[in-house]
């Protein structure tokens, strides 16, 4: 089926089978492989994207659901020459190890700071509570997000 939606600020039309998830559409048809598939059943948060500015698990969203809506993926955050402050802060704090959970966590962190530029530590922890990271133990991730919220 033909669907139309805003992807990273650009209106696009794409033909997609209705049983495809948004995650599959992004990765396999649109070539946006920054969004990762972890568990595929909404448990790990690796596939998190923003749907109308709100973090969702793209593995649980069927593609037809994004018709007329706005989707933001990690490819829409910063650029190679101008990193988003969160991306720079993740590098500065060593908040990335294997990197598989990173794009998803960045999307949740960005959604948090976009609506609440100065969250408390508890709010930061709450915002990333839907993400599993098996490398860092979260400490550096929380610090990286807090650092951006201070400026």
């Amino acid at each position, binding site marked *: 089926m033909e669907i139309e939606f805003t992807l990273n600020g650009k209106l696009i039309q794409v033909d997609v089978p209705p*049983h495809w998830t948004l995650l599959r559409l992004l990765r396999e048809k649109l070539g946006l492989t920054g969004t990762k598939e972890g568990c595929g*059943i909404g448990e790990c948060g690796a596939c998190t994207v923003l749907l109308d500015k709100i973090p969702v698990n793209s593995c*649980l969203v069927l593609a037809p659901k994004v018709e007329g809506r706005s989707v933001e993926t990690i490819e829409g955050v910063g650029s190679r020459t101008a990193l988003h402050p969160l991306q720079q802060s993740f590098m500065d704090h060593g908040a990335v190890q294997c990197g598989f959970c990173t794009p998803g966590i960045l999307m949740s962190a960005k959604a948090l700071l976009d609506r609440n530029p100065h969250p408390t530590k508890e709010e930061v922890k709450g915002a990333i509570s*839907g*993400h599993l990271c098996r490398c860092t133990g979260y400490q550096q991730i929380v610090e990286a997000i807090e650092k951006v919220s201070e400026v």
Partner: protein
Amino acid sequence: MIPTFDYKTPKTLREACHQLWEAGGKAKVIAGGTDLVIGLRNGNQNPQLLIDIAHLKELRGIEESDGILSVGAAVSHSEIASSSLVRQFGGVLSDAASEIGSPQIRNLGTIGGNIVNASPAADSLPPFLVLNATGTVVSQKGEREVSVADLIRGPYETALQPHEILARISFKKLSPEIRTSFVRLARREAMAIARMSVALLVRMEEGRVRDIRIAPGAVLPIPQRLEEVEKCLMGKSIDEALLRSASRKVSEVMINRSGVRPSTSYKAPVVEALFVRAMRLALAG
């Protein structure tokens, strides 16, 4: 990999009911999809047609009128958790909605979906039971009201016909002197299915219990209230000894209804402790 199906996005609830009726049991409705998409993926659900009802305005919004709070079935857990109306008039539901799944799941998942999925561990069911909530069920054939308690028939089984849609859930607004609490235990704090929970509503008058409703979650095949325990507490003033004997009654009723299982030696003392915690929380609130 998910097998294929057709997909429809009706513009009104009436149109959705018509499409569902026409499909003759071969269609499913989809709202948030947080349970259904997993069912499609693992083969437990094989619809030929999905009818998307998440956006229908008849199923949206939180409204109050004549002492009743009405919540659209397609309202997300996040929307419920951040609603000041629900916080004020049905706090026990706010508490549960804010702990379901993860932030991403709460943004997608809907309250109606949590009910009709009918998981024994569904976090919204114990609160709706203590709120004596009612569902409005609509179909091509008309509309009916059914209590949430009667909607749930068994684990993952509801009283809905294949052509019926749960449209709204409503309950009487709680007055300020009514105290509620919801306590939940899971393997980790975030992003885990409830191992056990207790929802509670209590109204004290002159130091005595005038009204009490207790519904545990994830310890009974069907979420139910514990009338036997409620009866023990009615009219009494609460002290430590009464709390202790009532908590023993909680595990006794659980065992009566669920039977002795391998998990019972763990669940019995824990459900007792959760009940006591819920009582203290409600009375302190």
